[in-house]
């Protein structure tokens, strides 16, 4: 198969050797290739952090904006051109910390975009401080007495907000990560995939084997359409359930709700202003 989303030449990647980001990249590249998407219609959007560098290493268009601010940009990109496949990528600090408010309100809007959050329970790029998902008791150069804030539970949060696709995966399983990524991208509506990932440099507690020992795949007979059941499931910790926790097709997407697309599906950039109508609007002020 011809690789269209990878680069022909070797590229310089800034991640630490052995970082979970490599397997996430591998899964994402495979997912993109297998979905057979038109490359010119794919846009990756990210903020700042190690995870947010992902777009740099994929051969597509991208908007690599500010820390925490990927979602508003991604929402607008999709809203202005619904023909695009928009994928936002960030870390736990980017999306759950700095960008927390946008996560809440993106959930309300339900744009047809996908959000991959690399959740390694620590800050990497700033060198080892606590993340919103750090487990209690973790000591860091800043949290010197150990983390005493309760970690954010992104799955429970998203399900409570009726995010229409909520999944968690461990990047150690590239196969399943790729499968879930494909489903998330294909899902119509806002999809959140929390990706467990070890940080070799700064998280000595939640290691590769810790994630292996503390996660369980959802059973085959699990029903992801039951919101309250999913919410209950999402509260389980150590082991954390992996897989699609919740999926709903009951909500219209943000773009579907936009009046501008009710009669005309064309993206905004293709449209021309009806200047005659504008002028008559001006003259109506007489």
């Amino acid at each position, binding site marked *: 198969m011809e690789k269209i989303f990878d680069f022909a030449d070797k590229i310089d990647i*800034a991640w630490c050797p052995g970082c979970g980001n490599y397997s996430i990249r591998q899964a994402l590249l495979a997912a993109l290739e297998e979905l057979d998407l038109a*490359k*010119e*219609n794919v*846009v990756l*959007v990210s903020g*700042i952090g190690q995870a947010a*560098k992902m*777009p*740099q290493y994929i*051969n*597509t*268009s*991208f*908007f*690599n*904006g*500010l820390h925490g*601010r990927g979602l*508003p*940009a*991604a*929402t*607008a*990109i*999709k*809203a*202005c*051109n619904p*023909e*695009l496949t928009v994928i936002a990528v960030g870390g736990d600090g980017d999306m759950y910390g700095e960008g927390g*408010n*946008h996560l*809440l*309100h993106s959930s309300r809007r339900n744009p047809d975009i996908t959000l991959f959050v690399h959740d390694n329970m620590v800050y990497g790029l700033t060198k080892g401080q606590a993340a919103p998902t750090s487990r209690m008791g973790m000591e860091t150069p800043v949290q010197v007495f150990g983390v005493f804030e309760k970690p954010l539970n992104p799955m429970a949060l998203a399900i409570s907000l009726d995010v229409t696709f909520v999944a968690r995966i461990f990047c150690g399983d590239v196969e399943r990560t790729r499968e879930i990524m494909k489903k998330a991208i294909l899902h119509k509506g806002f999809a959140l995939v929390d990706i467990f990932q070890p940080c070799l440099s700064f998280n000595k507690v939640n290691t590769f084997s810790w994630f292996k020992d503390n996660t369980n795949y959802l059973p085959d007979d699990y029903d992801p359409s039951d919101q309250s059941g999913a919410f209950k499931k999402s509260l389980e910790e150590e082991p954390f359930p992996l897989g699609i926790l919740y999926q709903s097709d009951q909500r219209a997407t943000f773009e579907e709700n*936009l*009046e*501008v697309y009710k009669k*005309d599906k064309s*993206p*905004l*950039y293709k*449209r*021309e*202003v*009806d*200047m005659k*109508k*504008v*002028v008559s*609007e*001006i*003259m109506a*002020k*007489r």
Partner: protein
Amino acid sequence: MIKTISDDLVIVLAGEAGQGIQSIESILAQLLKNSGYNYFSASEFMSRVRGGANSTEIRVSAGRAAGFLERIDILVPLHKEAIAHLKKRITAHTIVIGEKEKIGHQGMIDIPFTGMAKEIGGAVYANTIAAGCICGLLKVDEQECADFILDYFAGKSEEIRSKNLAAIRKGYAAGKGLAGITIAIEKDAAVKKELLLSGSEAIAMGALAGGCDYVCAYPMSPATGVLVEMASYAKKFPIIVEQVEDEIGVVNMALGAWYAGARALVTTSGGGFALMSEGISLGGMIESPLVLHLAQRPGPATGLPTRTEQGDLELVLHAGHGDFPRIILAPGTLAEGFALTQKAFNLSARYQVPVFILTDQFFVDSRYNTPAFAVTDLKVEKHIVKTRKDYKRFALTQNGISPRGIPGYGSGNVCVDSDEHDEGGRITEDPDLRVKMVDKRLEKSAAIRTDIIPPRLVGSGNFKTLVVCWGSTFHTVCEAVAALGNKELAVLHFSWLFPLPEKAGEYLRKAANLIVVENNASAQFARLLKLATGVAIEQAILKYNGLPFSVEEVKKEIQRLLQAGGRHGKNF
């Protein structure tokens, strides 16, 4: 004694929030203008939804006049507190009309609006009676009043319409029969054909004509009017209007929208704008177009939320870390509000820089009649290219402007990065490339300069004293200077603030004496002028109590500074 007003009348409506002075004003605006009077109104109100003391000035004149006057010829108070609220402006010359029993002002003309309204069917009709009274006084055609009021309440029940009709007639009769005042202001049939609109409406209309198709904002006084106007256009035009969770989201959404090929407008005030700083800087880095309307109000912090000031110029000038070019515009008239906002979209698309439109509460909430805007040359310049496989978003060019592609249009990757980047938009830390990219971004300033709109000189070219102002103070300052009748005096008004027009220095150096008029506490624009031209303006007329300048006070202050000579006034 019969008092005759023959050229210029100031009526002030005063009441508490929720009492309906806005609806009386909106009825009068249309009726007075349609009967051929030049019309101007400005509102001041407290930051509360009910109660308090608010007022609206309505100016009716034979000639065009849109300056704010301190003087009150006729005061229509709807509550007792209005008298205390406006005590500095009420003189022996002021005629007070209203419910004597309720207001209790000595010497006032008693028209019992509420009592009359009750005869019709309820106190709720008192406002229509008050509007009718003023129409009667100003000899507006009675049938026009009747037709208008039926139209105004078109969506209401037959009972409400007929009672309002009765109310306007009753008020009309009372106003027409008022002994003691004769209004003899000449009407001008040409005015009927002019536009009548507010500053908010002019900005929104400019955006519409600029091809705006995406509006995002977080509601904030006094910028919300533009948001509401654009939302109403969304019912007729393909425009996405989204109220965002916060201003940080707002600016990032707007950048995302431009990236995808839309033409986004942001409308905000100082506090909201402050939250957008990082996003403004991102816009500078990814060379995104961005049109941002900032309606100023007094700060710091929450300040006076519903009042006016020109205190955010330096904020806009410096917002965003790092070096990158920007354009700052500040309309002085409704026509400029329209034209500059329309132009802002094309400038922003052409140069890929943020364009700021600075207004203020006085500007957006004022309304007056104006000749129809120039609409023959309206063009939406998209400045978007179809990309090829080897497309580079930040290709180094002679003038620093790289052809702008958007994702999904062509086969190339459109990569933008908040990190320093190479021509293709990918991260780089190469020091030489960094310098090339900074230079490239700044190089655009030279091209921008070719589009600069020079300041407008009003008055004789042989001036000795130049009165310098910018933005919303245009009409008031021009009227004050004209009233002085001094041939050695001229006004220099700036609506293009940055990059500062080169013409500015020429004008300033030519004047023997310079006075700046600014609605802020530290003469921010004079500082910019000094920085850019080296010329210091030593005399300043500054106001920062939250209210707009009046013609009278500007006139008086200029006169005082001229008599005092040399380094007087407020130095800075």
